[in-house]
């Protein structure tokens, strides 16, 4: 831990030096950059009072094609608020990857992870400006400026970090105009359903859609002034080697919003320059030690399909992390500094895998039956106990919301070690009911919602919310809000005769998301039957058995199956003096007799058809045993010479007129064919 602390201190110093340099450069370029900001502002930035008046008229410039809702009035302010709609194509591909519910598995049943984002990987020694020089700026594509604007409140500036730039302070002041915010909410409620749907769809859901979109915005955007990132930078250990994206991702509560159906992968153009695999989610684990009165945090990186068992994280050096199980990696202890939870968290591995945890104002933790400690979730659940981490200045607001939700009084962890200055840990948040409308969108994850619960019953659960193919879950929704629509995987769902919800393809292998609009959402997965895929490979499960050079000791055992090291067939027979295993048309392998048992064993490559067993020179002292399996493989001319041993064995048995034992018509025919071939081979080879 000491070395980790030292590394963190070093990283902080380097980061501060870099910031100082950036500030100097920014001071020189400020007039030019501000002009560019009007076009390329991150979606979560408030509008600048210095903007062109034309911005008010809704002259948005949708950067990405398709899906935009031109009918929705766009103004400059709203154009830049929403990050995720910037790349619907990217969003689709990442949705297809099925990251919907992964980030907060077990604890988050909302399915709105919103955490997995694509990421711009910046070398540790690169200036932020060096990395962010990509495509033309992307302004908003979203159709619903109101929703975007409302969400825009929940971003930087409100996370409690100081901004040193006075001009930025002005920007924030305008952004926090309550009248504007209120209008935004009202207009959101009043907007036609289609427009709202379009807007929210383009806003992407909790999938990696949003993250992918956000990254594309970051990639295309221009460099922002360094000090604008102060509020959104991650902890020093993580910031140093990770991307300082132009538009840090921010968690947005999208519960109850209509979800964009996943697009075909062919239309996706969101591939990161590093890897085609979208980033996975990173969550946090909170440990509260009651006796030592300490609080600690650790990072929990999810492990989606395709991620390796061992990763090397770029964390001020390299940190090797192994997989804990198939769903996540081992915890990574992090020093909880003042800046750690302010912004997003991005991690890269040496081979290009990425993880992200979007920025949020309140970090919510709850117990997970399959995980120790408290794990982070995206939103609260009614009736469940939660622990919250927030800025000290937000405690009052959080307590007020807790009271609205019928929660008992929150318990602070004042004076516990491990809590940095300016932060507060509050436990005991157990909402009993919906809190009602929350003006500040950044606090909406504290609202458990209308108590609508999506339950997955029955089925054959392989893991939490993963069901075996052929045994899908029984989906129940209680209580179903009035006028609510239910979709599963974007398809309209209907109740069957038993009252369970079904939709086309709902029980097919893959990821599925149940959406209740308005209401919660829940993801589940149908695991494909391994019997239809790669199946179950053979492996030697008993290497502890004494090995050796004899055939029987070299056989591998797996269940009821035996196999040689090279895949040979294991043949065992009760011993005679001489035993030779013969294939139907080739292959002669003598069986080895065990010294401690009356059994002979051979490892044969060709499936054996006969065993010649003799105990003496006389005819009655031998026999040919038909094994019952005749290989249909035709022998080629090239095998003739190598089959001479086989031909000799068959010939000798035939000449001695050894009786054929246990053969039916097929066996007799096979022996006749073998004898004929043996004679032919012997003549040819001589």
């Amino acid at each position: 831990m000491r070395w980790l602390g030292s590394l963190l201190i070093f990283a902080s110093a380097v980061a501060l030096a870099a910031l100082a340099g950036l500030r100097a450069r920014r001071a020189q370029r400020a007039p030019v950059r501000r002009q560019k900001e009007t076009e390329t502002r991150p979606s979560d930035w408030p509008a600048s009072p210095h903007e062109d008046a034309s911005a008010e008229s809704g002259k948005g410039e949708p950067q990405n094609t398709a899906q935009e809702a031109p009918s929705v009035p766009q103004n400059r302010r709203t154009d830049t608020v929403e990050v995720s709609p910037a790349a619907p194509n990217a969003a689709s591909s990442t949705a297809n990857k099925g990251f919907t519910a992964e980030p907060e598995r077990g604890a988050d049943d909302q399915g709105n992870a919103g955490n997995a984002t694509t990421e711009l990987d910046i070398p540790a020694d690169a200036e932020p400006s060096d990395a962010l020089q990509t495509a033309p700026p992307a302004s908003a594509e979203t159709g619903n400026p109101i929703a975007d604007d409302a969400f825009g409140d929940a971003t930087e500036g409100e996370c409690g970090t100081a901004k040193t730039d006075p001009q930025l302070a002005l920007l924030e002041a305008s952004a926090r105009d309550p009248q504007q915010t209120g209008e935004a909410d009202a207009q959101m409620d009043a907007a036609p359903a289609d427009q709202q749907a379009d807007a929210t769809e383009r806003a992407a859901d909790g999938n990696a859609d949003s993250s992918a979109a956000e990254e594309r915005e970051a990639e295309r955007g221009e460099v922002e002034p360094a000090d604008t990132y102060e509020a959104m930078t991650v902890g020093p250990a993580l910031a140093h080697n990770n991307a300082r994206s132009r538009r840090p991702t921010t968690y947005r509560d999208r519960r109850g919003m209509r979800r964009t159906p996943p697009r075909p992968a062919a239309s996706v153009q969101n591939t990161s320059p590093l890897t085609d695999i979208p980033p996975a989610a990173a969550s946090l684990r909170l440990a509260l030690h009651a006796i030592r009165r300490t609080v600690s945090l650790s990072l929990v990186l999810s492990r989606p399909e395709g991620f390796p068992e061992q990763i090397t994280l770029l964390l001020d050096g390299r940190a090797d992390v192994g997989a804990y199980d198939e769903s996540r990696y081992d915890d990574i202890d992090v020093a909880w500094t003042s800046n750690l939870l302010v912004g997003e968290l991005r991690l890269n591995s040496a081979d290009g895998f990425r993880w992200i945890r979007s920025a949020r104002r309140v970090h919510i933790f709850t117990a997970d039956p399959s995980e120790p400690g408290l794990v982070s979730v995206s939103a609260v659940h009614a009736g469940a106990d939660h622990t919250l981490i927030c800025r000290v200045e937000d405690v009052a607001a959080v307590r007020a919301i807790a009271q609205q939700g019928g929660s008992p009084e929150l318990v602070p962890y004042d004076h516990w070690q491990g809590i940095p200055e300016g932060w507060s840990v509050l436990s005991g948040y157990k909402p009993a009911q919906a809190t009602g409308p929350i003006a500040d969108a950044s606090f909406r994850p504290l609202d458990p919602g209308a108590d609508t619960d999506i339950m997955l019953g029955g089925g054959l659960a392989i893991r939490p919310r993963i069901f075996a193919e052929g045994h899908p879950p029984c989906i129940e929704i209680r209580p179903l809000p009035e006028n609510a629509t239910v979709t599963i995987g974007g398809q309209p769902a209907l109740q069957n005769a038993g009252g369970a919800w079904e939709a086309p393809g709902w029980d097919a292998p893959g990821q599925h998301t149940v959406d209740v609009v308005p209401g919660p959402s829940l993801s589940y997965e149908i695991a494909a039957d391994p019997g239809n895929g790669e199946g179950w490979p053979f492996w030697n499960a008993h290497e502890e058995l004494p090995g050796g050079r004899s055939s029987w000791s070299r056989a591998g055992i797996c269940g009821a199956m035996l196999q040689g090291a090279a895949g040979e067939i294991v043949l065992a027979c009760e011993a005679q003096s001489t035993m030779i295993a013969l294939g139907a048309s080739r292959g002669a392998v003598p069986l080895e007799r065990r010294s401690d048992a009356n059994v002979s064993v051979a490892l044969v490559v060709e499936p054996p058809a006969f065993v010649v067993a003799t105990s003496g020179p006389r005819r009655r002292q031998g026999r040919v045993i038909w094994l019952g399996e005749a290989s249909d493989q035709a022998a080629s001319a090239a095998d003739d010479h190598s089959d001479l041993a086989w031909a000799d064995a068959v010939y000798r048995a035939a000449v001695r007129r050894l009786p054929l034992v246990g053969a039916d018509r097929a066996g007799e025919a096979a022996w006749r064919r073998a004898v004929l071939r043996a004679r032919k081979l012997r003549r040819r080879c001589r």
Partner: protein
Amino acid sequence: MAQSCAQGAQAQTAVPMSDLLLEWMSFRCKGRLNELSAELMAGPPRRMLDDLSMLGHIEMPSASSWQIAAPVLAGLPRDESQVDAAILCGARTPALTGRVASACGTVGAQLNITPVPNRPSRICITAPSLSLLADVAQFACIPFQRNAAYTLLACLPGIRNWPRQPCTMVGGRVETVRRFSASKRQWIESSLGEANAASRGFFRIKRDYDWVSILKSSLSDCAYIEDRAGRLYMASKLRLASWDGAAGSFSLPIELYPPMLIARALALCTGLLPQFDRPARRISFRGVGGSMQRLALAITGLRLA
């Protein structure tokens, strides 16, 4: 809605829970003892795993972990009076059983599913000839293990050569020392001094934090060995086994329960677990033919009573 889901659950219970457990394990592929789905357990978890291992469905890399075995059509010992038959061992999912059923229909073999209380069903395929069984396996894309029981037993070391790990005799303070008496077929109290002085014996010693089983094959040779193998080692050459040729029943005293692999080989003669005769305190494996019982005696070191 609750009723609909209850109906769904009832439909699942119509499928034996043990079959569902095997299917669940086939999907999971591997795991730990404490990860087993409690809803699907029809008995103590460890006992379930032992039985599944004996039936050839799983392997246990350690005492607390399991891994599903590859599916295989295990040929049953062929008796002159019986048809050729094989049982399905290892992983089992609807897709796999569907392929097997389809292959049986194609080839003309017969598929029999026999429910077993609290254990996975026994899936047996019978055919007029062994080559047809091999064809069923080929069509179902699973391997065929000819005479699985005999072949498995033939590839196992004898009890005298059973894997063991050399060690030194326990020293210092111990809580309990027991010695296995082959004649009485039970554990009797002993001491560390007696264990040190003995030239041959099988001892169970309780240390501060665990039990260890130590086999002394000579005055200076000590080794950790599997408990069941150690007891059989000590009972070597004793006339404690019995075999009924007509019924094909091979029985052993319960105290001499064979190690897992030997028990699996004997169980694969029929694909059924051994029967326990409580009054006589003996376990019986069925379907054991003459050649099989001779090999079993050679491997276990026992003799017929």
